[in-house]
């Protein structure tokens, strides 16, 4: 979960830990539903994505107001050995588009599996994939890329 969360969080390790904690909390509360789920892995992926969406809604466009200056997270800037170009490219993507990339290109899920994980239609997965790749190419230089299990 932590590995996937780090990718969904575009390299923000602190946010990734928060996402995992939020997802595990949801799983605990909904344990009966989780046990009945046909696809436990998809359920967990969905929980992570929902946690990311919740976090984005809470943070708001201009960030959360806080009583004290927050400790500077080193992952909001460039840290040693982090692929800054990749981080910037991923952060330019909306969360759902980022999730499509992670599930299709890293976890190598096919369109149907990705649609199940994101609770959307296969058509949406395909269009999100295409748009994500266009945005990525604007930030990264890599050869023509096809996801595994492309339909």
């Amino acid at each position, binding site marked *: 979960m*932590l*590995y*996937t969360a*780090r*990718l969904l969080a*575009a*390299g923000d*390790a602190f946010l990734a830990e928060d996402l995992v904690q939020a997802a595990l909390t949801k799983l*605990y*509360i909904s*344990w009966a539903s989780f046990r009945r789920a046909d696809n436990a892995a998809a359920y967990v992926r969905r929980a992570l994505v929902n946690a990311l969406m919740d976090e984005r809604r809470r943070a708001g466009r201009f960030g959360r107001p806080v009583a004290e200056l927050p400790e500077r997270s080193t992952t909001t800037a460039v840290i040693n050995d*982090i*692929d800054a170009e*990749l*981080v910037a490219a*991923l952060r330019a993507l909306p969360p759902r588009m980022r999730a499509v*990339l*992670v599930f299709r*290109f*890293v976890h190598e899920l096919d369109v149907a599996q990705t649609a199940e994980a994101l609770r959307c239609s296969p058509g949406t997965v395909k269009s999100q994939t295409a748009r994500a790749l266009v945005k*990525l190419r604007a930030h*990264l230089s*890599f*050869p023509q*890329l096809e996801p595994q299990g492309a339909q």
Partner: protein
Amino acid sequence: MNDFRARMDRLGGTVEPVSEEAIMADIARGEKAVRQRRTIRAVTGSAFGVAALVATVSLTGVMTNGGSGTPPASAISGGPASTASGLRLVDYTGRQPEGFTVDTVPEGFYVQGGLEDTLTIAPLTPRSPEPVVDPSGQPSGPSGRPAQDDPLVLEGKIGIYLEHKAVFGELTGPKLKVGGKEAVLIGDGAAMTQLVIVMSPEVYAVLQFDVPMSRAQMIEMGAGLHVHQSLIDKRAHVFDNLPKKD
């Protein structure tokens, strides 16, 4: 793996294996935090407010369908009653929760539900058809329901849960017998009180009372709580399947 995937994999990083000791410490810390949270919620709750409410509602012990909102099944009032501060115990004849058998509940209370090896017994509260306050301002529990309906909230209720001895620690204080089992009573009854019953060498059943009941009533209710052996065994072995070090 192409360059993009390799870069993504590096970004995801490695997840360092966690030692068995760290996992056990985390579990113990989490369960302690849950216990403390329940204690704080119970102590800051309005036990006397609950007593006043229950005294005005002449209902018998009933059970809902796990808090799903279906009408409660009726139960028969009667049976042994213990007199104390406005509450009396009645025989519980509603549907039994999974893993437990409950003999008595305070009059006006019902089995609200729980998770795994936990159980919450809560007062039935009458619902006004026209609320005079904005219900969106009502405090909600961790499951999102109003606190009074949330089995995860133990304020003003009776919480029952199994605890591993490794997490709870040795029982200290005067020992008593509850239903033939060794037990201790923690608290003076004025605020939150816990009745801890030894179910097995590794497992305790904790009854946490945030309602005004006498010592005798708490003991009677504890004696009438029967936990199925499968739940006790499961709690006893909760630390068994931790991943081993490579």
